[in-house]
């Protein structure tokens, strides 16, 4: 089922950890070339697992794709190693930033250029500093001492050093101040538009994600329970209620409400 428009295509994958814990129960999604796609869902829905299945990092956590397939630019990648997948241009930015704490900001970036052409290192560095000018001013700071926002910028900048085609971003807004989150989302949009990098964005902050994505998927309990153009999802009453925290009247509402369970069941059937 090759699809001319899709750069990445995840076909009905099933993922297990330690051979027994079934976490993804048939997830399918597509990311078109040059697109931004959001993957939403509550804690434990399987968002990070989906990204790790794509990037190949799953094996490192004793996870396995036991059914289905993943294609990137027409090639099967679900049996490839993490290094091979990274070399093809798919780079995951892990949840929780995960900078190399004992290295400086610039050394972190240079690690990202490990496989690149050494002569083009300064060119790549300039590109990262162009999008994240603040990183240039703290280039010699040890990454472990940087603030959360700086670390998130560094994590994305480090991925950018690899010259990626598709970025898998896992909750880049996690634990950051709203202003910084805005800034980061803006930069992601610019990277997408100006560098042509496709993005698969995992977020719990659905409001933000739906603002910058063209298409979105909602994951519940290891299954895609809803998908559609971002605009349609923004207007969907369920999404408004459960992920955007708005009721019909637009007032803020508590995340867990009695009706939630009933509606969730409706999605699942």
């Amino acid at each position, binding site marked *: 089922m090759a699809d001319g428009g899709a750069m990445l295509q995840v076909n009905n994958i099933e993922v297990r950890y330690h051979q027994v814990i079934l976490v993804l129960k048939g997830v399918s999604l597509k990311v078109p070339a040059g697109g931004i796609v959001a993957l939403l869902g509550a804690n434990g829905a399987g968002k990070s697992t989906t990204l790790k299945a794509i*990037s190949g990092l799953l094996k490192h956590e004793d996870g396995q794709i036991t059914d289905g397939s993943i294609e990137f630019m027409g090639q099967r990648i679900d049996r490839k190693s993490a290094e091979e997948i990274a070399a093809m241009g798919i780079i995951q930015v892990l949840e929780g930033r995960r900078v190399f704490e004992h290295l400086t900001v610039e050394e972190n970036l240079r690690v990202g250029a490990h496989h690149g052409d050494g002569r083009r290192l300064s060119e790549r560095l300039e590109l990262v500093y162009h999008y994240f000018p603040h990183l240039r001013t703290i280039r010699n700071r040890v990454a472990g001492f940087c603030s959360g926002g700086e670390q998130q910028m560094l994590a994305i900048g480090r991925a950018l050093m690899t010259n990626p085609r598709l970025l898998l971003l896992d909750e880049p807004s996690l634990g950051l101040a709203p202003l910084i989150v805005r800034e980061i989302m803006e930069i992601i949009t610019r990277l997408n538009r100006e560098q042509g990098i496709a993005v698969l964005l995992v977020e719990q902050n659905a409001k933000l994600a739906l603002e910058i994505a063209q298409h979105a998927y909602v994951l519940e309990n290891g299954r895609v329970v809803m998908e559609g153009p971002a605009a349609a999802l923004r207007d969907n009453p369920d999404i408004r209620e459960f992920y955007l925290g708005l009721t019909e009247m637009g007032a803020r509402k508590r995340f867990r409400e009695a009706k939630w369970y009933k509606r969730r069941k409706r999605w699942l059937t």
Partner: protein
Amino acid sequence: METFLQLVLTGIMVGSIYALVALGWVLIYKCSGVLNLAMGELTLIGAYVSLTFYTWGLPFPLALLATLIIGAILGILTERIFLRRLIGEPVLTIIMVTVGLSFFFRGLIELIWGTDTRVFHPPVFPYEPVRLGPVVIGQVYLWSFIAALALLGILAAFFRYTRWGLAMQAMADDEMAAMSLGISPKFVYAAAWAIAFMAAGVGGSLLGNINGVNISVGYLGLLVLPAVVLGGLNSIPGAIVGGIIIGVLQNLAGGYLDRFTPGGVKEIFPFVVMTLMLLIKPYGLFGWVRIERV
């Protein structure tokens, strides 16, 4: 006072050799989490290999270079054959494998080189001692010190400035994050073993010049354990400082305590320090306080 200075200075010089070997040990530990108990044998192999090349007529610097090359090859082979398949196994299993490795290497050494003490002949360094202010130092110590420092400097530059060195540091900091950038853990583990073998090899060769080459060089190589416990298991600067401190303590113990005992203080003292350190400050002087990954 002069004796004291003398003991401290030679201690620092011998300690710099321990520092070199300890750096190799820490590298393996940092990059792959393996507690390697075969370090003494790596040191011993280095001593014999360089001695062999020297006996064949290679000038000593070239013999050292050849030892480095052989060390790199042996390191990569050891990682490939014995350790790669154990990635992800419990820590204890891997420790036991390194114990097995140490017996394996020891057997191999006896098979190839026998058990007699051998010396570098003709001696590599002139016998005449040199005067440094009030103290007199054997040239072999001085040159060993210089060689160890040079290699430490080269390794430091390697970690700081080359992409491979950076990749190794990154892997030590956060394996998953390094992998997410396409860095291969296999490459990093192999490089760590190669460098450890090279460092231990040069260390063994220098120790062999000081004491002659026999099984006792292997015991000296084992002094990395107190050195790294002192410095902190995962700290490279700690390994260097720890190595030098152990060298000094060992010398002082030998110089001042030996006459009160039937002997052996010099051998035991570093391990007494190690035990005390584990009780008082288990993360060492420079170690990261961090939960062990298992």
